[in-house]
């Protein structure tokens, strides 16, 4: 219970710092500043990772429920969907798969190379 309150306070603090930073400097959306702040506070051990672990993992597991209201908003756009729905789905499908393929393939290749370098280094020693 104590750890849950600790986690909520930690997140709230970071949300506020994020909002302040976005207000003062602008640029990125406030939630990103909050995220960066949360990561840094954990990294420099100002926040205890052990105490927040369980609550945060639970929150991340269930976060998709927050997207439901925005998703239901699609009923506002029947006309657009009727007219261009197929094209929109097609564009999203194609560009998502292009991105998946490029990032996936290239990262797999570079990791293979790095691993090979590791192995050859070891064998020459």
């Amino acid at each position: 219970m104590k750890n849950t309150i600790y986690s909520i306070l930690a997140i709230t603090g970071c949300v506020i710092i994020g909002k302040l930073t976005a207000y003062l400097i602008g640029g990125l959306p406030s939630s990103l500043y909050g995220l960066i702040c949360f990561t840094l506070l954990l990294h420099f051990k100002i926040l205890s990772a052990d105490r927040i672990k369980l609550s945060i993992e639970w929150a991340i597991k269930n976060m998709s429920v927050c997207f439901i209201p925005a998703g239901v908003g699609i009923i506002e756009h029947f006309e657009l969907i009727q007219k261009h729905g197929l094209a929109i789905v097609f564009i999203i499908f194609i560009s998502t798969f292009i991105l998946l393929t490029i990032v996936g393939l290239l990262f797999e290749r570079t990791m293979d190379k790095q691993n090979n370098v590791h192995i050859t280094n070891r064998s020459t020693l």
Partner: protein
Amino acid sequence: MYIDQLPSVALSIILIVSTVCIYQVFTKLQVKSKAIWLNPLLLSIFVIALFILYIDMSFQQYFESTRPLTNLIEPAVVALGFPLYQQLHTIKRQWKVILLLLTLGVFIVIPVSILLTVSLIAIPEIAVSLSLKSVTTPIGIALTDALNGNSAITAFAIILAGFFGALLGPSWLNFINVKSAEAQGLAIGAASHALGTATISKISYEHSAYGSLALILSAVITAVVSPFLIPFMFFCLN
């Protein structure tokens, strides 16, 4: 139904509780059936959309009443700092490659989406929305507003991009021989943000870690790049 006579707080509570319950039921269903296409988010949206159409409630009323749920997106994004923190040691070793690849991804996906949309639909507003679909919702919406897109279309496109990556991503990546958990996580995080990452997190810890890493870095890169890249694309097309 006498929705108009309910005090707004009561309506708010009823709608939020039912939204969460419907989501819970579908989550249980998915856990039991283990079928990845029974996505709780997709099914919940579908059922709730049908329901509010059936009882003749306006979307605006539903959205305003469930505002607390939407407001939770911001702290949820902040919470993603935890998996990022856990992965910091990984970035130390691979940060150049990861940053380079994700930047390359952003520079490919935005022009491709804009070119396709302009040639197939020819509405600039939708082109902006579709080009921002690979980043997590709060950031996508914020950028859409700044760049004169249509935020409802962005929200829909983001969810759809999330679904494609979450449902078909792992099998597609296996098919093209991208089999390591790290590469799969990074690709799905980059293309399908939080939704994809949340779904593949069940496969392995590496999937979730690299997924969060990619979704966070991609969002940051997109936020930095798109205010220049998107107007530049439109400038070139005119």
